[in-house]
């Protein structure tokens, strides 16, 4: 090998990072091929399918009244939590901080269209805040590389929802994300551990494609009372009185018990309990829902 070749190879290797570092920077547009009806028009009331919830979460969701958003002003401009934002409506911009002195990656930043939500994912090895620190909608995120996969751990989340029909996620939950890039596609697998409302981790995945021409506008939000209710009213259904819980079962021809969620309903073995189930002859609600504009409302 000539001295020149060695020099060129050495120079080339100099620019290779000591460990895997995939760049997630860019403008990303969401793909809605998974869970389209839930994510675009929004979930049906009483639809708890695919959620390993406990009895407490189920009753909380049964008690939830959508009027709460109109009556309790503080709910109106409340953003998604970072564990939900990746699957909610909205496009995403990812940027990164490089320390100019060391050229080390210090942090990723995500900006979501929905509620202009900004999050920092720290890569500098810092510790999470103490338990008595305040919580935020985006939580506090740190990350490490596992090969080419970025694993993000988020704590200090504010109480929020895991589905937009009142299924709660507590402020004690931890969210673990696995970010994987395949060329112009991004997959994020989110695992939520919630000792308050889940009996086992909730695992979901969301996909994105690189869209360099994307422009994310300002979301903006101003809260105002929409219904003339006295201060302090919190709309809720008393246990056993919510009239909407069977709608999803009737509309989709699903057994009511299956719509109630719970870990058991997640697994293939549960099908054995559905021996009497007959699929409806044809789909007539949200049948081809892959973007917001092709969801067919009845």
């Amino acid at each position, binding site marked *: 090998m000539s001295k020149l070749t060695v020099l060129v190879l050495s120079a080339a290797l100099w620019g290779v990072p000591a460990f895997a570092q995939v760049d997630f920077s860019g403008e990303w547009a969401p793909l809605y091929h998974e869970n389209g009806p839930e994510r675009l028009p929004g979930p049906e009331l009483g639809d708890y399918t695919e959620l390993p919830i406990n009895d407490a979460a189920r009753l909380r969701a049964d008690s939830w009244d959508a009027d709460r958003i109109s009556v309790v002003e503080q709910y109106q401009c409340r953003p998604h939590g970072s564990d939900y934002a990746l699957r909610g409506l909205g496009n995403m911009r990812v940027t990164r901080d490089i320390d100019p002195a060391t050229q080390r990656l210090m942090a990723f930043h995500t900006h979501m269209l929905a509620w*202009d939500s900004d999050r920092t994912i720290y890569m500098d090895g810092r510790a999470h805040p103490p338990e008595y620190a305040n919580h935020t909608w985006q939580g506090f995120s740190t990350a490490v590389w596992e090969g080419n996969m970025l694993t993000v751990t988020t704590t200090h989340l504010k109480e929020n929802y895991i589905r937009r029909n009142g299924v709660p996620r507590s402020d004690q939950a931890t969210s673990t994300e696995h970010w994987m890039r395949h060329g112009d596609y991004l997959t994020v697998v989110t695992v939520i551990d919630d000792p308050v409302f889940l009996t086992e981790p909730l695992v979901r995945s969301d996909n994105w494609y690189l869209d360099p021409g994307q422009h994310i506008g300002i979301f903006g939000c101003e809260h105002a009372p929409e219904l003339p209710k006295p201060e302090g009213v919190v709309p809720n259904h008393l246990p056993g009185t919510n009239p909407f819980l069977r709608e999803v079962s009737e509309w989709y021809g699903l057994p009511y018990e299956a719509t109630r969620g719970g870990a058991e309903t997640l697994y293939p073995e549960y099908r054995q309990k559905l021996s009497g189930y007959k699929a409806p002859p044809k789909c007539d609600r949200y049948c081809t829902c892959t973007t917001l504009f092709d969801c067919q409302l009845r």
Partner: protein
Amino acid sequence: MSMKRLLIAMLVWGTYACAQVQTQDAVHVFPVQGNVSMIVGPGGNTTVQVGKEGIVVVDTQTAAAASQVMAAIRTLSDRPIIWMINTSMDADHMGGNEALIRLGGSTDASERARVITHENVLNRLVAPGIAQARVADAASINDTYFRSPKDFLFNGEAVMVYHMPAAHTDGDSIVLFRRSDVISSGDIFTPDRYPVIDVQNGGSVQGLLDGLNKILEMAVAGKYQEGGTFVIPGRGRLCDEADVVEFRDMVTIIRDRVQDMLKKGMTLEQVKAAKPSRDYDTQYKGSPDVFVESIYKSLAARKP
């Protein structure tokens, strides 16, 4: 010194040092915003406002924790404690009054810290039958108020003390540090546990809700319902308006359920057996039965 004595001395010192570390670990200082910080300790949370004029302390925890709380305060300021405010009559909110005055203020009568409570706190503490252990707490109070809000300007900031009648007790106060934009709520708001509604000492569920709604009225959230006014609870982590909303909603919804059961003529035992708080029990510490009973009793007392 013999080897045996040396070993015993080392053992004793080691145990003492270990105990010191453990108790020191139990008290933490957390800056909130503006001039206000939160001290998290075994007796709950203490709110501290510091500046050139001195120190304001809201809730003093217990006498046993006073030296640690004072050490924590000294990391923020070396000025004297001039004002103290107790948000309720509970021993773990005012038990450290005398010790903190001794450690961080002046015991001279003319310079002694002003200790503010609502008048009902003093009335309860001097009532016949009160425990002997509370006499010192009563004696520490030298500045009661009965017209709400009581306010004063200190360190260039308006400090406003609002009475919350019939909430956790009938002598509760919440404190607004107006420029720093921080509210110290006392035990009206405890984000990680069910509130104690001390019916015997004048507390009620409706009064508690009125207090929580008052906090929501005073607090202004930042962009997208986050930050803005911070709320230091009686116990638990630092919060903002959105956290108070969750807590207020919990109390309201369980109140609505108990009220419905009461209308149906259910007895206290039947209400408890129906477990109206069961979807919140995995989230909030404390006894659900005690909480439900206090709601039942305060609602039953209102019935004509």
